[in-house]
């Protein structure tokens, strides 16, 4: 080949392939830089020792110290975690039942349920927010159901609603890939419906239930729009507090808490990924990306 002065077609192909490979690398590096830029910035600025978040005054851990000692911030994070746990439990319970039903029944009701859940998915959050607020006022003030005047109850309800469709569709997707004959076999072997559900259906759906619960928890931790609408004094969740400081001026403390919350979210993700891998149920990325 070296004797040939003209480049062979294989060589031109190779050159072209190299060019494309370089282009792909530029694209990949560019997109990942873009995706991570603001997160890296928040983490770096959480070590800002100044009084204002955006004005860098030198490296230090003052923001972390102030964040963990600030009572308002501590309360906000506490409210977020409590409402996240409750909303995740509720959404996962409802979503598991819904997902199994949707995967196992073919009636017009199942279709309608799918349609309604799909509508909740495409409804912009701001519309959820402006519709649930008057309803809470109606229930709590006009109908005197005092339960709905409790800020925590309100947060748990709206966070459950936000996560419900996601969990349901995740469980449904998993169960649709499982052979119904296994559950029928359990019934034929005289398992009661409850035992069949607990001992056969639930273990089959487990990866999606865990991924769904985690998803519901993060959706709850992140929920800002609906939460700020329904929030009541004394029950300010962390994102609502953070959103409030955007208008009044942010301090480095908020970046410190955000960085800690980021570690919490990623830790939860990693935990579920490990558990899924151990139980041999496939990896988290595919479970999440496929839903």
């Amino acid at each position, binding site marked *: 080949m070296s004797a040939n002065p003209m480049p062979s077609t294989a060589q031109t192909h190779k050159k*072209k392939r190299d060019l494309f*490979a370089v282009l*792909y690398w530029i*694209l*990949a590096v560019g*997109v990942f830089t*873009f*995706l991570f830029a*603001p*997160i890296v*910035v*928040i983490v770096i600025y959480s070590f800002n020792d100044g009084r204002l*978040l*955006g004005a860098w005054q030198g490296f230090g851990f003052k923001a972390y110290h102030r964040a963990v000692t600030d009572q308002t911030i501590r309360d906000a994070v506490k409210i977020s975690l409590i409402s996240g746990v409750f909303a995740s439990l509720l959404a996962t319970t*409802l979503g598991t*039942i*819904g997902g199994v*039903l949707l995967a*196992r*029944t073919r009636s017009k*009701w199942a279709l309608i*349920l799918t349609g*309604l*859940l799909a509508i*909740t998915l*495409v*409804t*912009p*959050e*701001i*519309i959820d927010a*402006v*519709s*649930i607020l*008057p*309803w809470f006022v*109606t229930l709590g003030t006009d109908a005197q159901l005092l339960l709905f005047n409790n800020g925590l109850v309100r947060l748990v*309800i709206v966070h*459950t*609603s936000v996560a*419900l469709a996601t969990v349901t569709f995740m469980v449904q997707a998993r169960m649709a890939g499982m052979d119904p004959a296994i559950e*029928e076999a359990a019934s034929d072997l005289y398992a009661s*419906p409850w035992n069949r559900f607990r001992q056969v259906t639930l273990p089959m759906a487990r990866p999606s239930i865990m991924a769904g619960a985690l998803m519901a928890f*993060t959706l709850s*931790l*992140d929920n*800002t*729009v609906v939460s700020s609408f329904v929030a009541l004094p004394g029950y300010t969740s962390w*994102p609502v507090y*953070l*959103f409030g400081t*955007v208008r009044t001026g942010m301090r480095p403390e908020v970046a410190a808490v955000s960085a800690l919350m980021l570690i919490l979210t*990623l830790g939860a*993700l990693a935990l579920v990924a490990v558990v899924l891998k151990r139980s041999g149920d496939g*990896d*988290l*990325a*595919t479970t*999440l*990306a496929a839903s």
Partner: protein
Amino acid sequence: MSPVKQRKLRLSSAWLSFPIWAWLLFFIFIPLGMVAWYSFGYKPGLFSPVSNSQLSFDRYREATSGTFVKTFWNTLEIGLLGTALCILIGVPFAYWMAVKARPEWRGLLVAMVLVPYWTSFLVRTIGWQIILAPHGFLSNFLQDIHLINGPIEVLYTRAAVQLGVVYNYLPLMILPMYVAFERTDAAQREAARDLGAGRLKAFFSVTLPDALPGLLAGSLLVFIPLMGDYITPSVLGGARGNMVGQMLAQQFESAQNWALGAAMAFILMGFIIVTVLLVGVCFLTLRAGIRWTRRLDLEGVV
């Protein structure tokens, strides 16, 4: 299964589905219905947000003749441009992830797209506020290397909102496109190349039509929440980057005119539902078109 047993199963499943139905109705659809009902009412006085003693379409008329229309077009432009940019960046990137990158890296790459997506939406947007600040580090750096002469003036403009929405919704384009590309057939691509198609031709006539459902799903996943976005324009937009979400929120919060706000909410909702239906129709037409123009006449086989 015996009919009795089947009946029993069905009854138990009807009973089981009660909680989810109850939740959907009581906490999502009745509230939506109430807001729909408010949209036909009016604001009776300074201290009352809504009354339905007289029903009319006046609030819809009021909404479609005021500044709402201008803001709506503004939002639509941001939404369409944002979706187009997400396609432009997300499609080749997802193709690289699913087809070109080494298979053993794919899990890691998906995780690296999921991490920003799972980070708080609000926190990410605040990150951009720091980056784009006129006296922030990026602005100072660009001035130091004399790339620009004054501080960057992007924050609190429409450009900042545009950047913010592309950033916030890009993973929603990448992930479904990745799944779609991963399911396409490498053998078909190779066949197309062997038959003389170039790189781009093979992509546009073989791979992309296969991944069409993913593209449409991704576009809707980006476009729909983008149209109702409230956080991004609030954090990055200021007065010049207003979007409809903020405008209808104002009617419920500061203006206390629930009737007008409700009408705005349902104009937005109606627009979104029509868009979803239109995209569905486009998809079916496109697919039928592709199938029609590429009919295979296997005469001997039939």
